[in-house]
């Protein structure tokens, strides 16, 4: 009898040890050929290594499995299937492109694993996810939330700085889905503003949008568009294109003598060493994060230093702190729930408040469609002295706005 008891005890202890050593598997899908995906994946690895160095979660180590979606929808969808069926992950994280995510959503719905997504701003994705998907958490602001936050930002800036006056808005948009989507969103905002409604009501009395062909798609000649912008003489000139357009756009603006009061770029990322160019001074941009947030946020400072120490490179896109946030938000939920059981974890994640290296505290609230939306606003940043500074939200600002956009003379 004693022998049987001992055998059973040993079996129980062994299975406990084996279970304790079984990692909690997190499956990430990111475009690794792009800097956003590359740095987000690295930041996730950093977060996992930090958590494992502290003993893991629930006595189990974390294991991160990253698959490259190569920015193609079919590969992104296949990656989700593979993570669920071959790698048998417990959670899905990652994300960047809206088009890729749109193809992934039906596959995710079939597995219904807890999913925390940091990319895909296109709100057609939340419509595809639907209001009943309680397993789905989306951290990046949706496109309409971004548009509203910019309007709020410009209104706040115009109120805080009496010399700033914004009435006429010009949008230069690339011909692809990203640019035309932005133009359509601005048309809606303008229609609302004309009725005195929406976040842009105080700062958009007139609007004009003109398309251009991005250098990424074989274009790169913006002069005809810039001539039209110059003729329109906007208070706010915004271009929605890609990183390859950033410097040539400024060069050609200088060439045609176009110098609006605010020169705003809204690409997903910026080219290497953009801040070193004298043309970058005073360029305003939209983004979720800037390295200068390190100076006001200890979490951001820790992330910055740890990332550089581990990868010997600087984070250059907000997808890096967002990737880090992705893992830590999940970890905080698991810690609070004390289990990875789905319903308990969802409840815990709904309550998590995580001070993110992005600079804001991440809290979950419903969006227009889904139950679990994280961040709801972008920031207004500005290149000053080769660095990106926050100029809005005012409570997070790291520098005063440089206004108006400095003259081209001597640059």
């Amino acid at each position, binding site marked *: 009898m004693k022998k049987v008891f001992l055998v059973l005890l040993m079996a129980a202890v062994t299975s406990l040890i084996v279970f304790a050593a079984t990692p909690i598997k997190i499956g990430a899908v990111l475009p690794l050929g792009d800097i956003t995906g590359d740095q987000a994946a690295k930041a996730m690895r950093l977060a996992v290594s930090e958590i494992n160095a502290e003993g893991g979660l629930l006595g189990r180590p974390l294991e991160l499995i990253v698959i490259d979606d190569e920015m193609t929808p079919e590969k992104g969808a296949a990656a989700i299937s593979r993570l669920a069926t071959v790698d048998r992950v417990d959670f899905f994280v990652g994300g960047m492109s809206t088009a890729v995510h749109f193809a992934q959503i039906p596959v995710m719905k079939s597995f219904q694993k807890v999913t925390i997504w940091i990319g895909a701003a296109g709100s057609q994705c939340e419509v595809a996810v639907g209001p009943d998907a309680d397993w789905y958490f989306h951290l990046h602001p949706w496109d309409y939330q971004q548009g509203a936050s910019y309007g709020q930002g410009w209104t706040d800036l115009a109120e805080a700085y009496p010399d700033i006056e914004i009435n006429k808005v010009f949008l230069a948009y690339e011909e692809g889905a990203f640019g035309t989507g932005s133009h359509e969103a601005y048309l809606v905002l303008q229609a609302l503003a004309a009725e005195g409604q929406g976040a842009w009501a105080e700062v958009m009395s007139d609007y004009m949008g003109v398309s251009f062909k991005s250098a990424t798609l074989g274009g*790169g000649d913006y002069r005809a568009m810039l001539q039209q912008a110059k003729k329109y003489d906007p208070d706010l000139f915004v271009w929605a294109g890609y990183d390859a357009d950033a410097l040539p756009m400024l060069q050609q603006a*200088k060439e045609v003598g176009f110098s609006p009061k605010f020169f705003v770029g809204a690409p997903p990322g910026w080219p290497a060493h953009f801040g070193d160019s004298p043309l970058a001074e005073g360029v305003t941009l939209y983004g979720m994060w800037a390295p200068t947030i390190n100076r006001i946020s200890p979490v951001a400072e820790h992330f910055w230093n740890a990332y550089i120490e581990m990868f010997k490179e600087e984070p250059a896109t907000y997808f890096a702190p967002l990737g880090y946030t992705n893992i830590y938000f999940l970890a905080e939920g698991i810690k609070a729930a004390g289990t990875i059981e789905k319903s308990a974890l969802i409840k815990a994640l709904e309550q998590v408040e995580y001070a993110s290296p992005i600079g804001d505290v991440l809290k979950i609230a419903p969006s227009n469609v889904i139950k679990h939306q994280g961040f709801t606003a972008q920031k207004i940043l500005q290149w000053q002295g080769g660095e990106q500074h926050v100029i809005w939200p005012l409570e997070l600002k790291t520098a005063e706005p440089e206004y108006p956009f400095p003259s081209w003379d001597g640059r």
Partner: protein
Amino acid sequence: MEKISFLRKHRGILILVAILVVVAIWRPLAAIYGVQRGSLYALIGLPLALTLGVVGIMNLAHGDLLSLGTYIVYLFAVNTGMDPLVSIIPVFFLLFILGVVIYKLTVTRVLKAGHLNQLLLTFGISMIVLELMKVIWTTRPRSVYVDYSSSSTTIAGVRFGTYELLYVVLAFAVLIALQLFLKKTRLGQATFAVGQNPRGAKIVGINTDFVYLFVFGLSVAILGIAAGVMVPRFAIFPSVGAAFTMKSFSLVAMAGLGNLTGILISGIVLGVGEAIVQSIPGYAGWSDIVFFGVLIAVIMIRSLRRQSL
């Protein structure tokens, strides 16, 4: 009679000048931008025309080799501080060597194979070059800023950029140099002969293998000139040159095989067409349609004219 034959001989150039005068009066900026960008298309299209006309190979890696050229210019600028325009000289020779290596290792093996095999080979080279650039430099754009690249001047109340006039100068310079090479040098005459009739050239003792090798190397080398002049105005990223492959092929199709002057004329016509469309508010997205529409129209007119002869 002499006057009539002169007009007939230079009909293309005269039509081009007439078009430019009309556009310059109607939309002066579109004329300037069109000539500038059209000259760049021609500068990049000329070496493709040379390869296609003499070696008989449609090089689908043309644009990717141009991208590689921009990265080499970038490396010279970052590591030695060399001005991109000065780096044209070393990049020209480096790309010539690269062209020779690519030819010896790969192209020479498919010369007698069908066109499909040749296309597959150059497509493979294109993929390898593109992916190598992504691995080495990632997709994040880089740039080399020189202050003269955004210089401008005002003439008769029209303010326009002066840097891109370099595209015009270099396109004409390369065209004249190629014409002189083909007509005044022994190797050039041999190249011309091989382009006209490779079998006949071989029979009379011309080393056709060497001509192919030299022409392929020279074509890749000329991309170094284009890369050097592009870098101050373009972001550098792996697919920056990709769009130029199709545009270059379009110029060759429009000008006809072996017609180098026609490449320059076609480039300017298509560039001006593109610039006119871009200058009309709300119609910028139509520029590619116009580009290829003009191309199809010219090819069809030429085809109909041939049929009527």
